[in-house]
């Protein structure tokens, strides 16, 4: 299977110098960097507040279920694998199979959404809402912001699955698909940092 820079870009367009070997659309990379910056600011705010109120954060974190956090992580990572496999299928000119992989990615993302909604419902029933304390204020802001990105990513996955089924992508003309999948991986990447920070670190 080809892994040349052209194949990775999924585009006929050749970009000069610094941008030559980037997969997907250049605009998506600027969008990803902007998103990572916003998440980075939120994560630093969480870390600094944690340093100032360590005991409160330790006690509050103990109210969260780490195994739920782990299940959320596994569902997102599995979804990321399926999305990456979909790109490989399009590069091998098997768009219909790619649609199947994207639907599988969507299914795994649905598991994440279901688990997260269960967790939110459980916390609300226990009175651990946004106004409970500083930890939960930051917990709700961070995880809800990430959750919205997951929902947007699922819409993108569904749209790309439909496009794959309609044979709208070709091996050298799939930069839109690659860009959409890159967005989904960014959602994974953010969660990889959020998971230890919110659920695990003591």
């Amino acid at each position, binding site marked *: *299977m080809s*892994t040349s*820079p052209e194949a*990775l870009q999924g585009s006929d367009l050749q970009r000069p110098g*610094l*941008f*030559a*070997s*980037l*997969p997907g659309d250049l605009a998506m*990379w600027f969008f990803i*960097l902007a998103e*990572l910056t916003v998440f*980075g600011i939120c*994560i*630093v705010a969480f*870390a*600094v507040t*944690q*340093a100032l109120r*360590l005991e409160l954060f*330790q006690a509050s974190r103990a109210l969260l279920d*780490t*195994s739920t956090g*782990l299940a959320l*992580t*596994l569902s997102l*990572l*599995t979804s*990321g*694998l399926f999305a*990456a*496999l979909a790109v*490989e299928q399009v*590069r091998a000119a098997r768009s219909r199979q790619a649609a199947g992989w994207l639907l599988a990615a969507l299914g795994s993302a649905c598991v994440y959404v279901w688990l997260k909604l269960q967790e939110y419902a459980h916390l609300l029933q226990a009175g651990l809402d946004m106004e409970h304390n500083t930890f939960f204020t930051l917990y709700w802001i961070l995880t809800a912001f990430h959750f919205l990105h997951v929902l947007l990513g699922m819409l993108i996955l569904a749209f790309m699955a439909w496009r794959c089924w309609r044979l709208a992508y070709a091996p050298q003309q799939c930069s839109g698909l690659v860009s959409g999948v*890159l967005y989904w*991986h*960014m959602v*994974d*990447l953010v969660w*990889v*940092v959020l*998971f*230890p*920070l919110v*659920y*695990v*670190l*003591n």
Partner: protein
Amino acid sequence: MASWKYLLLCWLGLLLLSLLTVELGAAGATPLLAGGVLLVALGKAWLIIDGFMEMRHANWFWRGLMLGWPLSLGLTIWLSIALR
């Protein structure tokens, strides 16, 4: 190596590192263990960036920019714990 095998290996690595994260977190509450948890998170971020996002083929500048994100955040989080 075929691309799908490479992706599968990345995913297996991510699963194992996720389990290791939980184990390290449950082992205690010291700056050293926190550093271990964050190092594992950095490993996971590297697998996603170089494996899933295919940045291993990209220009060093963009690759550095992407890998710098989890690295700088991990360092910030660790320092906020260790320097307290």
